[in-house]
């Protein structure tokens, strides 16, 4: 028997979640639900349509939190991260980067 596709909605606290984090999470979950993020009353309104069996909004919010942490970390660490990535890519391509 096929489980019925479900619809859910929730409001994300804008002090914790940015719209970008929610959109990134929506992309990760694109094979599990159609996610719509819109400004809403008291935060960002997130609605889920055509959710696949087993989908749980809590999993989506975990992913959004993961994305938010990544965005926050990037603000702090992007210089070190960028240096490592650049060195790795240039060396692999056979180009030397001056220190």
């Amino acid at each position, binding site marked *: 028997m096929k489980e019925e596709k479900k619809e859910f909605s929730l409001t994300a606290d804008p002090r914790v979640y940015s719209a970008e984090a929610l959109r990134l999470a929506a992309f990760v979950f694109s*094979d599990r639900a159609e996610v719509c993020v819109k400004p809403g009353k008291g935060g960002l309104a997130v609605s889920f349509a055509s959710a696949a069996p087993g989908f749980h909004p809590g999993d989506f919010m975990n992913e959004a939190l993961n994305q938010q942490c990544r965005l926050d*970390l990037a603000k702090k660490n992007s210089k070190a*991260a960028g240096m490592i990535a650049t060195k790795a890519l240039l060396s*692999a391509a056979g180009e030397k980067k001056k220190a």
Partner: protein
Amino acid sequence: MAQKNPAKRTSPAGPPQLLWRREGADCLVTNDFGHYAWLKCKDFNLLAAGSLGEKHPKYAELADKGFVRDRLDFEGLAAKWRSKNAYLGTGPGLHILVLTLRCNHKCLYCQSAAAGVGARNADMSVETARKSVDFALQSSNPAITIEFQGGEPLLNWEALKAAVLRARAGAKKAGKQVSLALVSNFSLMTEEKASFLVENEVSVCTSLDGPADLHNRNRLFSGGNSHAATIKWLKYFQERYKHQVPGYRTFKPSALLTVSRYSLGRHKEIIDEYVKHGLEDIFIRPLAPIGYAKKCWGQIGYGAAEFTKFYLASLDYIHKLNRNGTVIREKMAAMMLEKIVNSRDPGYVDARCPCGAAIGQIAYNYNGDLYTCDEGRMVGWEGDDTFRIGNVRADSYRKVMASAATRACVLSSNLESQPDCARCVYKPYCGVCPVYNYEVQGSLWGDMAANDRCGLFKGIFGALFALLKKPGGEAILKKWAGK
């Protein structure tokens, strides 16, 4: 020249960059240079507050290892960092040529989801094999390994032979050190083929999953007894290794273990089997739910906790054997220890930052398509080309290194950009896998808090550091590193 304003000192000075984890009454601390130290939690608190005085018994060790801000030996620490991360200065070292998708085995976990022996359009042509070797020789890495895989690569002997000869001739011209390796189930090995391989300095590696019943249960072979063929040729290559002759080096054969659900609980028998056949290394690799294995995960897979239990029991048993004088070491531990104990890069492409996808290894599919790694190729086999980085006939080396998939894997496997990893005590030695993340969690980045591969590494590192803390354990484990 005008003097710059001296930097303002915050008092008391806290430690420089450090990562830590509490384990009962002790704390493990590590830093990006690859140093580690065990501290009592009360001493850790002093270190963190910047009030661990010079007279403290741990001071000298911590100062030497770069944990004391006023005593940083920048040159020494930078040299350590460079040595541990030497891979950042070179290009792909491992080049996997998938000579055929065909195989005469039907292994339960086979990630290459091999085609039947009679399948058409599943072999690499001789021309593509030569082109693949030429492509590999363009790598910016001065020392490369070309590994022949399948399917069962002996089913495409002509391409294998052509690639070996091309590589040997090309290495001289390119001024590169080229190692050649064959991964085979040995069931199609003949004296003539074996001699060609040995004389051309091709090292051989086979699969050995344990004693006959377990091996044959995992590795189904309608043409006979898979275990018997493996052992027969393992012995053959061991004999040739023992009796070196002038003109070429003969390498010791090695074996790969794949841990399926059926292996759990049988660690002693598996390790004994390796010892019995004269193998000095056992690589206890977890199965990953990638490609074909994802489909049958319910039957053959397991969780991080189950694997960690198996791994710890195996390490314990190997330790016991070592104490009794038996020579055998676990390869994953040995590679991690090379980083932990010697601050040297062991060349383990799956646990480094960024991971080796494309920039550390390339998989060459039978049709010339290039993938970030064999795992990326397996995703391609399922119809998703996210990890395809080009084609050996159509694309230049530089284009492949700059492809979208290459860059995406470099960025997403950068631990400095991973929220959990950036603060993790194991970061200096660990790595994440974009293919695993993509297959299991739906994005290249993954979410380490809920990631089983991360859980597995945490279990392995936890076990290794616990053993390093034991006085006797440290001596044995140090011998494993850099062997």
